[in-house]
């Protein structure tokens, strides 16, 4: 097992190096750079910029240098824990993103927990009671959940909350708690605001999980070992939970790797619509303004989350499914 983890860890590092090069290159792909979009913004507000001023700024920001020089500067800074400066905010990137990443992980983490708590029992129920009324309801609910885009659901929810209760859903705190320290009242205030985005964010995932779990479980339930267990007189709940559910979880566990980056990127539009201070809107904005160190850092962190997630799912899979453990040898 230790060898397995070390092996995975080395692969992880190599992946990260490759990803960082690709990420940095992709950010530089669009024509122009931060200063182009800066001039664009100035022109739009009616200002004129002398090209020589822009040339000075380009030198100051090191924007005129070739790609590999910029990349090398960036990555060697990151190794020392310096993610560079955001052009737009003239601040260290790290200072800008840590709070937002925190909110992203908190919100999406809660959404994942809700998702699993809701989806697992329903999925198991739908499989065991195939073609029952409950199964049909779960199926219909699941299809709606999958079909409605998150941002649209968010809009509907905001509209309904406004017309029915006269409240504007949005943000994560009431004004008086926005800049306060964490305390019990603040946690409560957070929960009274966060339920809506959590509901929105967990909806599609819940629907998907129900469908996957139901399908997997149906496959497993037909297998001879289930019949054997049942024949040996195990109580029905034990027959289902002890083996088939465990195996049916396999595909869920192996996608944990995708879950973590989805924590940040999956909620971009929902965050924009519902006004959530998560990393998604910041990534979106940094990409449109070509604030490359900021965008690069967020993309790199997403990649780190992906590879860490993959490692976790590998380990978990090895734990729950012996076949994988042996296969690695």
């Amino acid at each position, binding site marked *: 097992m230790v060898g397995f983890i070390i092996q995975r860890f080395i692969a992880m590092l190599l992946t990260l190096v490759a990803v960082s090069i690709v990420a940095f290159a992709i950010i530089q792909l*669009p*024509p*122009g750079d931060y200063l*182009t*979009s800066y*001039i*664009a*913004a*100035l*022109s*739009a*507000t*009616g*200002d*004129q*910029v*002398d*090209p*020589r*001023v*822009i040339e*000075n*700024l380009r030198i*100051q920001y090191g924007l005129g240098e070739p790609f590999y020089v910029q990349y090398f500067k960036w990555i060697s800074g990151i190794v020392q824990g310096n993610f560079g400066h*955001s052009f*737009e*905010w*003239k*601040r*260290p990137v790290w200072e*800008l993103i840590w*709070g*937002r990443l925190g909110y992203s992980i908190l919100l999406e983490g809660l959404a994942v927990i809700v998702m699993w708590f809701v989806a697992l029992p329903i999925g198991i129920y739908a499989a065991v009671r195939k073609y029952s009324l409950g199964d049909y309801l779960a199926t219909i609910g699941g299809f709606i959940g999958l079909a409605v885009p998150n941002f649209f659901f968010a*809009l509907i929810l*905001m*509209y309904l909350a*406004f017309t029915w209760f*006269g*409240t*504007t859903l*949005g*943000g*994560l*705190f009431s*004004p008086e708690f*926005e*800049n306060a320290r964490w305390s019990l009242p603040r946690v409560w205030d957070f929960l009274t605001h966060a339920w809506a985005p959590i509901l929105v964010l967990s909806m599609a995932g819940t629907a998907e999980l129900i469908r996957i779990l139901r399908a997997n479980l149906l496959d497993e339930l037909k297998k001879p070992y289930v019949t054997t267990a049942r024949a040996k007189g195990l109580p029905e709940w034990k027959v289902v939970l002890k083996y088939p559910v465990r195996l049916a979880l396999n595909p869920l566990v192996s996608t944990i790797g995708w879950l973590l980056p989805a924590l940040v990127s999956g909620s971009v539009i929902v*965050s*924009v*619509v519902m*006004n*959530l*201070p998560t990393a998604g*809107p*910041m990534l*979106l*904005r940094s990409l*449109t*303004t*070509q604030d490359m160190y900021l965008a690069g850092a967020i993309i790199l962190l997403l990649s780190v989350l992906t590879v860490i997630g993959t490692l976790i799912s590998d380990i978990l899979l090895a734990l729950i499914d012996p076949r994988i453990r042996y296969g690695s040898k």
Partner: protein
Amino acid sequence: MRKDNFFGLSAAVAVAAMMAAAGPALAQQQSPTLDELVTSGALPPVAERLPVNPMVVEGDSVGKYGGTWRMGLNGGGDNGLIVKTVAYDSLIRFDHEWKTAVPNLAESWEVNADATEFTFKLREGVKWSDGTPFTTADLAFAVEMYQDPDYAAGSWIDNKNNPVTLEVIDDYNFIFKFGKPNGMFIETLAGVDGIHITSLQKAYCSQFHPTYNENAAAEAEAAGFSSWALYLQDRCAWGWETIRYANPDLPSLNAWVIETPLTANAQRVTWTRNPYYWKTDVEGNQLPYIDNLDMRVSQGGVEELTLAALNGEIDFQERHIATTTNKPLFFDGQEAGDYHLGEVIPSASNTLVLQLNLNHLDPVKRELYQNKDFRIGISHAIDRQEIIDVVFTGQGEPFQVAPRPESTFYDEELAKQYTEFDPDLAAQHFEAAGLTERNGDGIYLASDGNPVKITVDVISALRPEWIDMLEIMQLQLAAAGVEIELNNIDRTLFYEKRPAGEFDAQVWAGDGGIEALQEPRYYFPFSDESVWAYRWAQWFNGTRPEIAEEPVDWAKEQMDLYNQVRAASTPEARAELFNQILAITKEQFPVIGVSLMPNSYSIIRNNLKNAPESMFNAWLFPTPASMDPTVWYFE
């Protein structure tokens, strides 16, 4: 609204003298929020905080102190809203009708005969928000900073075509001197660009510059900046830079000062009253009336702001939320949200300006686009009423790119020529432009045998209705024999394509409908925004000599006339010259417009008093700050 003289600036000097004479006679009062600070000695009494001769602002009624003005920023980088709301305090300003310049920080001024020297007198005893006096030393410092190559800015102060020098006479008197005549300088200074000169306080900002502090470089490094220039920019961002509002320590001359700064993670930007603000109402009460501003920061979407406005959580706002599509929604929600709609007259003349690239690098396209008959043919092939009915629910009227009816330069012929929908007339003009052959799809063939196909660059993210309009125009023009292809692109690419010269056409709104004289981008090749003649514009203003091209004679004549406008010292002379420019524009018909930009609206809470029921909206006339929010109050 009115057709008389918009920029009657000669009258400004007289007004200046009159306003200077009208000092407050009554007892001076202050906001109750400051009482305790004064009693405890933390703040001097209000009489000592106000200048000798405070600026008096007249509202419809005398108000009362208190309250918080709630509004919303769109995304973190929305410094535009802040500038337009809080930061419009320069030496002089425009009156509410956007007609003449009136005193502000300067109480009077004089202009010499050839418009090269502008002598100003500052209001004595004005103080920065930290209590230090505002004098000519601050202005001299600002000029020095703007002209420092390491403090790259870009404004009229460091304009390389006609840079300004500042001659200080004493603490309150100074002269702006220009090498060449600058007849429109007063308009520039009274507009939003004026704030550059009053945005830097010497006492605070000089500590980051090596001339004034020998340790500046070391301190910058200690603060985590690679050079003193970057640190200076971070602490003392000029004019309306976004990060200017991220530093609450930066002293200002505005009515409200930052409390919760605008940072990348701010969910709310709040402001509190400047205890040293130098304006009073007619009874001598120190302004502003409203104690605090509260700007919620949306994450880039305006859905939440729209709901907040409907819910009565926005006290006054126009920007972002007042869209054409939202208008019925806001209209219906007035009673429930306890607000009403005010009228907002846009400065843009046109909903869509189709700018064919007259400087195209492809000689065939260049020749075709430069052919006036081709442009007239396109104009006649557009059924403008259909577009107005479908996209703007009937609001607006067919209109070319021309000064708006509210402008002194309005010319009905210029505004209405070639706007009737007439396919036969269009065909005649196309024929006159040498287009006779058509292919199987009915599309004309250009002189090189290729079908006439115009790729139109558009940024739909900026104005979603552009795409709707262009899709209708696409069908209309195809029927007339011209194919247009929509190229919906990102803003950066949109701007990047211009110098390259290989785009066919770009679309923008009709800026310069009211401020025609200052923003003549569509009337002759004036600036980088004159996309239709980008390379001629470079020849005119010399910014990118490497791609500049000598313009055709009529454009050169306009440029010559505009240089005379700049040199003319009276508004009448300027208007006369500018009318000549517009006459050439009418004759040459360089760009194609669709319809008059319909009026917009503002959302005004019913308990907010003195707020404007009708106002212009422009960048150069920054609203609502130009409508004196300092005298608005909550009932």
